[in-house]
């Protein structure tokens, strides 16, 4: 057998081996960067969801001070804290008022505090960020009744 054939076989096998590695990497890529949501699939998913007639979220917001913040979904649903005077810290740490069991949240993730007669949501330098109604919280923003805070995989509702 010629030297050239042997070299080609050798390189071909290495290429095959790497092809497997790359195939696996492309499969798990969605795990690292998030699955791309197909717009058609999303369009199909939205009408399916019969419980969302109130997509116009700001309309739901009412006057008055919020009185409680509660975890909305998952195994911890219903856990929450009432908003009195004291600031409420949310995170994974044991010193938090709302202790999340969520791997995507930081030890001290976010804070709700009372200032100038209203409640504010502030991100405490968390790794994955805090979202109020889908917007990333970069500086303290007012928290209103009906708003939802997303921390990691957990959603919390602000209620009266």
């Amino acid at each position: 057998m010629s030297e050239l054939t042997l070299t080609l076989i050798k390189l071909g096998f290495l290429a095959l081996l790497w092809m497997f590695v790359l195939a696996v990497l492309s499969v798990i890529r969605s795990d690292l960067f998030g699955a791309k949501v197909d717009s058609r699939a999303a369009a199909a998913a939205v009408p399916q969801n019969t419980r969302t007639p109130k997509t116009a979220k700001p309309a739901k917001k009412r006057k008055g001070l919020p009185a409680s913040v509660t975890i909305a979904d998952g195994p911890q649903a219903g856990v929450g804290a009432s908003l009195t005077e004291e600031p409420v810290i949310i995170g994974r740490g044991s010193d938090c008022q709302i202790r999340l069991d969520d791997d995507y949240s930081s030890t001290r993730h976010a804070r709700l505090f009372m200032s100038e007669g209203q409640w504010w949501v502030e991100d405490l330098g968390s790794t994955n960020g805090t979202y109020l109604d889908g917007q990333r919280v970069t500086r303290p923003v007012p928290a209103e009744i009906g708003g939802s805070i997303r921390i990691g995989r957990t959603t919390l509702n602000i209620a009266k």
Partner: protein
Amino acid sequence: MSIASTSVIQIIPRTRRGVELFLLLIAVGVSVAAYVNIGITAEEGVPASTGLYAAGIGLLALIAHLALRFRAPYADPVILPCAVLLNGLGVAMIHRIDLGLTAIGRTKGVPFAPQQITWTAVGVVGFLAVIIVIRDHRRLQAFTYTLGLAGLVLLVLPLVPGIGANVNGAPIWIRVAGMSFQPGEFAKVCLVIFFAGYLVVKRDVLTLAGRRFLGLDLPRARDLGPILIAWLVSLGVLVFESDLGSSLLFFGLFLFLLYVSTERAGWLIIGGVLFAGGAYFAYATFGHVHRRVTDWLDPWAIDGGQVKLGLMGQAWGGILGRGLGQGHPEATLYANSDMIISSMAEELGLTGLIAIILIYTLIIERGLRTALGCRDIFGKLIATGLAMSFALQVFVIVGGVTGLIPLTGLATPFMALGGTSLVANWAIIALLLRISDQARRPQTPAAPVSDETIAMAVQKQ
């Protein structure tokens, strides 16, 4: 809102069994290609046994795949193909070394490759048993202490006179009914489950009590008990069984799980100091440890040492390798078990070795990802422990073979010749897949609010 729309990870529960089947086809294809390649270059022509080999490995992969399809549909799609590929490559390399040994007349009668295929079949049966019997890994928590005891018994079993056997200088084998086993491989699985079960209960005590010293959270003296026991047991394994690798593996595993469950870096420092002390003690006291270190510091000091021959083989392989069937891996002692990584490096080169290490890394990554996604702490700790046992094993053996650390006798998972290790590794993979099935399975229907937020996030894209 570019930030919000890109960082929303919509988790759609998908079984992904089709992807797994596709990857399995590639994995089996690569294994068969390796076998054919060896046939062409080392045997002059495609060997007649190719069909048998392809059918065997393909059938075993298919059986494992079908078991997952019916019993664990949401299991991770990547772990099984990676395991099949490593196993298949290992068998092909063992077959290649059989040919080499026959050529230089060092054959010991029966070829090793058919044995390894038989053990693969036993391993897949074990895989099926774990997947079918263990429906929910949380049930195992009830057996925490039973499994801990079983692990200890398995560890000391080779010391029992009558069934213990001393193979290649380390009495870590038992001989039952004419076959030898390495019970330490199964002890590893039992002890991971025991550590996980123990730490689930104790981790709060270990985390909360303690004091800060030099910026470190140190645990209380009375909580040091378990780590000292783990240290003593692993030292005992070292003293009485001369098994450096297993001792390192058990202590490392316990330390990792302790760190993961308590999030205290102080444990790692205490463990590191204990390990350094133990290692120095072993170096100063035991001849075989001393010899390993000498062999590591100066591979040329020992005439015909396996590390030396392995390193020469790897250097000869270079970047692209000699090509399958065109090197001389059989010249190294234990080329098909301890030194199989060096045999791979000789024939596939650095390029192939990196691919193999990446495949191990992928299994480990998927294990840790399973731990992240798992909803209960017990499952998290088991998945972390099993993934770390792979990581430690691969690090210790690859590091030893490539001259990074002293060589110790741990089996290269899935590749090295050895039935017990293969069966134990298939059981580990089954357990990981069982936990990942739990972790990736869709939860109870989400509350309205979470649907709403997802729908909003989708619309913004």
